[in-house]
């Protein structure tokens, strides 16, 4: 019976770019126990939102996560639109969905690269990330930003797409589709890569259902669930796409699901651009006061089901914003799937759910106070300062 060694991983560890701590008990190379500790990324969003109006919330929620920033804002504006009873114009919905799919594309490419890096396949990592830049360029073309697109607004989107841009993006898609199909081939066929991921990190279908696994992680275990199809939103009712599932139940399955979703997303983007309807992109007049009531909005983020719960109370500020990020649902399951594997499998097994701790740890508390004798400007003060400044210097009164 070999001695049990306690191996902490994180919060600073190269296998995860984000701070989270895993404690593993290992015997030799085998893992016999795993625990997880979060909270290193605990900032302050749910409470912060109670202190902001809806548009400011949008700004904060965009910064929950740098990878799926569009997911969170979309889920939030959808819930708010439900409360307000707004009907978003078709073109607005299409553009929103376009960014959704592009985001999925860049997120999955990012993940494929990271997965390759976790098993030391740096060449695939580099090549995939090179082509991810194409997606980033498209997103920059659409929104003007590489990461936080800031394209959603309550009642529609903020930027329109010109005909030239549409054609340009369609032209950029062609090489992307070809390359992603090539990477799909490498990711599922390259022997040393497949040798590392096949049969590792197993999670049976039953267990995945019990653990409420979502997204590609669940789909790779045969859980056929995709919010885009089950609870359609945006432009998805009009679009045709396949929901990819796999019965492999291991990391190989998760790679399979994701690489084919990449290809599927590419096709979806093309479909959206080719069928882009004419018209307005956003509702012109939106009430600033949101009526009382609660609304749920589900959204299929790249990592799975993202849920926002918004309760309005008749004022400009929400009463409660609750965010359930997909990683939260998958993390326990992934930690469990590591037990029995080897130390070498930890990075890829944890990475196989595409964890995003900034999403998961989002809740913290806002407090405006003095600290170390330094005066912080509270939001109210800053606002008052702005109003005064304008009144004094520009003669504008609010």
């Amino acid at each position, binding site marked *: 019976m070999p001695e049990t060694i306690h191996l902490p991983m994180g919060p600073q560890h190269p296998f995860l770019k984000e701070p989270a701590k895993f404690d593993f008990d290992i015997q030799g190379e085998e893992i016999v126990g795993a625990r997880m500790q979060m909270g290193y990324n605990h900032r302050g969003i749910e409470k912060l939102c109670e202190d902001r109006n809806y548009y400011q919330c949008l700004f904060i929620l965009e910064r929950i996560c740098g990878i799926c920033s569009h997911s969170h804002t979309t889920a939030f504006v959808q819930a708010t639109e439900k409360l307000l009873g707004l009907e978003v114009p078709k073109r607005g919905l299409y553009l929103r969905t376009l960014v959704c799919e592009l985001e999925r594309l860049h997120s999955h490419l990012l993940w494929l690269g990271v997965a390759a890096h976790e*098993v*030391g396949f740096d060449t695939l990592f580099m*090549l995939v990330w090179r082509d991810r830049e194409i997606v980033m360029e498209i997103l920059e073309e659409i929104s003007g930003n590489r990461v936080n697109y800031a394209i959603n607004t309550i009642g529609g989107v903020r930027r329109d797409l010109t005909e030239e841009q549409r054609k340009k993006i369609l032209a950029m898609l062609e090489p992307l589709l070809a390359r992603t199909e090539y990477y799909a081939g490498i990711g599922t066929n390259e022997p040393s890569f497949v040798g*590392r991921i096949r049969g590792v990190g197993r999670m049976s279908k039953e267990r995945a259902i019990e653990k409420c696994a979502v997204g590609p992680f669940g789909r790779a275990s045969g859980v056929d669930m995709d919010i885009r199809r089950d609870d359609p939103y945006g432009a998805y009712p009009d679009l045709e796409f396949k929901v990819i599932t796999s019965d492999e139940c291991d990391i190989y399955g998760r790679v399979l699901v994701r690489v084919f979703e990449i290809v599927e997303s590419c096709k979806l983007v093309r479909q959206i651009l080719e069928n882009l309807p004419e018209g307005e992109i956003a509702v012109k007049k939106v009430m600033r006061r949101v009526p009382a009531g609660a609304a749920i909005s589900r959204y299929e983020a790249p990592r799975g089901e993202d849920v926002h719960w918004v309760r309005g109370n008749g004022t400009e500020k929400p009463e409660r914003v609750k965010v359930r990020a997909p990683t939260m649902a998958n993390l326990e399951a992934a930690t469990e799937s590591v037990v029995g594997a080897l130390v070498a499998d930890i990075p890829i097994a944890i990475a196989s759910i595409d964890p995003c701790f900034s999403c998961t740890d989002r809740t913290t508390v806002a407090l405006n106070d003095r600290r170390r004798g330094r005066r912080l400007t509270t939001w109210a003060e800053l606002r008052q300062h702005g109003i005064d400044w304008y009144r004094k210097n520009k003669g504008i009164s609010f």
Partner: protein
Amino acid sequence: MNALKVALYILVYPGFLFQSGFSTFLEWLDRKVYARMQNRRGPMYTGWAGILQPIADIVKLLSKEDIVPAAADQRAFAFMPILSLAAVFTAGLYLPVWHLRSFNSFEGDLIVVLYLLTIPSFALFLAGWFSVSPYSLLGATRVLTQLFAYEVPFFMAVLTPAVLAGSWQISKIAIFPWTVAGHWWVIPIELIAFVVAILALQAKLERVPFDIPEAETEVVGGPLTEYSGKKLAIFRLQKDILMYVGAALVACVFLGGFGALPQGGDQASIGVLGLVFGGYLGGVAGLLLGVVGLLLKTTLVVFLLSTLRAACARIRIDQIVRFSWRYLAPWSVAQFLIVLLLKAKGAV
């Protein structure tokens, strides 16, 4: 052999200066090839096309603060880098890069070189063991496990040409294909052993796909996690020289190495180039051609290693053990049998 000459041999060529210089060049080449395979450019602004990059790295590390963890065994921690550098450096002196024979060559130096090349792995293991951090310990045990996996196939692969040549002396093995006219075709015969040696060398150098002890995403820096400053610089230099010595050894025993110098006219050939020019060149020109030939072959081996590194994912520790005992070892045995058969038939 007077003292000055020996000092020159040890310090300048083929000793310390040459080994350090050429091995940093090889590291640069390796990084460039690796970057190009990934559609990057690699180092560019340090010297011409970044050729001084490895030197800059080492100089910088030498000038940095040197931290020794409080828990570590101070003396052993400091001794290990020096031990491993000394071992590979000495091994390098036995290689016939200077002349037909290295200045201290003797019958059986192949065994000595193989033995010396094992020391860095042990030093690395002990270095990890003495730095007492979980990652170092894990990395250290992996170094040792991996050692048992690749060492036997490597020995067997290198012994094949020795048996073929009927000598344990590197220089004799190196000139064997050229000494008897028409015998250059023994090189392709040893192809299997060559492939095994390349793979095992990659494992010895702990590079992808066999960089298990240093797997960044798993055990951070492996045994070197706690090393910094000068000691890390020495380890890096050691790794570079190990790459050079390993590649040059493979080039010598499998690819004909330096080739034979025009000695008296009838043994006239210098590697592949020698087949063309050897008969006509002698003296200094022949010597230079031989050196260039060997260095080119070494570079070729490094190029193969870099390509291998870029084309693979890291495998697991159990996979490498299985791989080397299931494939590498039987392959080298098969190669051995082929050679014995050929010898018995009197074909070579």
